[in-house]
């Protein structure tokens, strides 16, 4: 609506400016098609002139649309590239630094493999399963092999950019989501098992969930006819809860790494992790602000919220560490930042800067507690804390979105209609809870079934000898650091 309003305003202004200047304006704009400068402009109401004016209006309208499309498309293509950068090298470096030296390439290879594997699957059926059709649970096959996905926009999702841009942008989300899970299976999962499991997981867990929350007709969709409209601006449920909860299941199913928790397994290079986390922070602007699907004021709002939440979470995790251990660590600060990025993801396009600070601050503390306390209480070996950060952060973020979402930021339910608790619509918290529970349940059940299936076909865990020798050599036949060469 806002967009339409703007376009109208712009058009009006252009028309007002254009009428008196018709003679001068016309040739400079498009000399080929305009009816050559009509000299007798003073004699009003002549049918020729009104025809010329309406012709001019039509052209202006086209030019405005084209200009807007160009601007939106430029931002969305950049955003797509930024989101890809989150997986490689962002996440690959972040995770790569956290593992032991002998597993560095293996974990990086998993992220990189997903960049290739999911892209191919996406072109064949993935995009269609997520965004084709309008079923309540999963899309259809109408866009299989990217049929009909080209320069024309898909007005259901993004009316100002080519559908191909929307398609490739959404692909980048589908890549990073399974890559997050590898943080829980790190240092002990077979490469063959990883490939098979994540292929199945993408088709059976990610695609339906993405459709339910973002797809037309999906029953959690907030703006396209969902039964339980769940607010998820950029993927709190679809990306972070789904991957985080699946990560927990994987950690439990695979069991602990050999020697955990007795043997020390400190990160082999926090420098790599540090660079990775910084790339994630930058890439996340594409993830969250890009989810406005236009170069709009809403994108700016999401950008701003993302930044402040991240900063607040880095602070709160560091403060917690400083109080608890007497020293704030670099790993703590970057982990906090990632927790903040995760938590603000569902809320980014619905909240202002102050609620964003609050969401980030809370997420930093909750994830700190999950990673340092809850994990050791239950004793699961979530090697790189995929659940502690993404599962917990995603859940907190999704629920707090129900609290802080405001219609002044994004009137998603229609102009003037309350959105979240801050607007007085506390029922939204209930919808968020439904969305969270469904995402949890779906990820839990799906992952258990798929892991079991994978285990029967390829096996999921490497042998103890292979694990001790390291996945780089045993799974890929190479080493990350050949110091003698």
């Amino acid at each position: 609506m806002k967009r339409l309003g703007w376009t109208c305003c712009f058009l009006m202004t252009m028309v007002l400016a254009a009428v008196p200047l018709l003679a001068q304006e016309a040739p400079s704009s498009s000399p080929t098609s305009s009816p050559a400068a009509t000299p007798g402009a003073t004699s009003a109401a002549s049918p020729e002139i009104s025809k010329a004016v309406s012709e001019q209006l039509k052209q202006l309208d086209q030019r405005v649309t084209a200009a807007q499309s160009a601007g939106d498309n430029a931002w969305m293509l950049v955003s797509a590239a930024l989101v890809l950068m989150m997986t490689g090298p962002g996440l690959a470096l972040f995770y790569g630094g956290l593992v032991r030296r002998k597993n560095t390439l293996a974990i990086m290879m998993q992220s990189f493999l997903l960049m290739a594997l999911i892209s191919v699957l996406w072109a064949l059926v993935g995009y269609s399963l997520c965004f084709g059709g309008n079923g309540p649970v999963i899309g259809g096959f109408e866009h299989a092999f990217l049929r009909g996905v080209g320069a024309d926009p898909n007005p259901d999702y993004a009316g100002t950019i080519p559908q191909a841009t929307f398609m490739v942008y959404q692909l980048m989300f589908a890549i990073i989501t399974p890559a997050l899970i590898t943080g829980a299976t790190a240092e002990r999962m077979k490469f063959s098992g990883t490939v098979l499991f994540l292929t199945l997981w993408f088709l059976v867990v990610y695609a339906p969930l993405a459709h339910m929350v973002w797809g037309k007709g999906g029953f959690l969709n907030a703006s396209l006819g969902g039964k339980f409209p769940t607010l998820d601006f950029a993927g709190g449920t679809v990306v972070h809860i789904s991957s985080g909860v699946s990560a927990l299941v994987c950690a439990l199913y695979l069991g602990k790494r050999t020697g955990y928790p007795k043997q020390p397994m400190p990160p082999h290079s926090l420098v790599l992790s540090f660079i990775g986390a910084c790339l994630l922070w930058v890439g996340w602007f594409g993830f969250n602000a890009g989810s406005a699907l236009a170069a709009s004021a809403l994108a700016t709002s999401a950008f701003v919220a993302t930044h402040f939440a991240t900063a607040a979470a880095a602070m709160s995790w560091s403060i917690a560490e400083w109080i608890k251990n007497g020293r704030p660590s670099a790993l703590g600060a970057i982990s906090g930042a990632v927790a903040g990025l995760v938590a603000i993801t569902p809320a980014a396009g619905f909240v202002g800067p102050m609620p964003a600070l609050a969401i980030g601050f809370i997420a930093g503390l909750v994830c700190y507690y999950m990673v340092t306390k809850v994990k050791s209480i239950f004793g699961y070996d979530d090697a790189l804390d995929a659940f502690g950060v993404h599962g917990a952060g995603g859940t907190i973020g999704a629920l707090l979105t129900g609290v802080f979402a405001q219609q002044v930021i994004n009137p998603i339910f229609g102009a003037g209609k309350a959105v979240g608790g801050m607007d007085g619509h506390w029922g939204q918290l209930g919808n968020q809870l439904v969305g969270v529970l469904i995402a949890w349940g779906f990820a839990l059940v799906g992952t258990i079934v798929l892991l079991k299936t994978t285990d029967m076909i390829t096996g999921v865990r490497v042998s103890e000898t292979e694990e001790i020798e390291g996945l780089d050599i045993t799974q890929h036949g190479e080493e990350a650091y050949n110091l003698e060469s």
Partner: protein
Amino acid sequence: MMKIEAIIQPSRFESVKDALREIGIEGMTVTEVRGHGRQKGHTEVYRGREYTVDLLPKLKLEMVLPDPLVQRAVDTILKTAKTGKIGDGKIFLSRVEEAIRIRNEERGENAL
């Protein structure tokens, strides 16, 4: 002929080396090592998990010297490597039976 093995704090290495050169000792072999004696390690915390790092980085200096030089070398190392805190390292002395220069097969103290 005696062999001196001195395990020292890496931070003292430059001073020790310079002082040894001043008393006329040119040759030595240096290795980066890890270890500990009475010195306890330190604790590192990664996301709430505590690791005690008890093997600490040290440098090991090895040199074989003619008997008259040994005492002066030991004194020099003691003087320059000492910080007075636990973890300063140790010096081991042992008798060496033979030394041979590979280039020209000189033997004994001539080879040093």
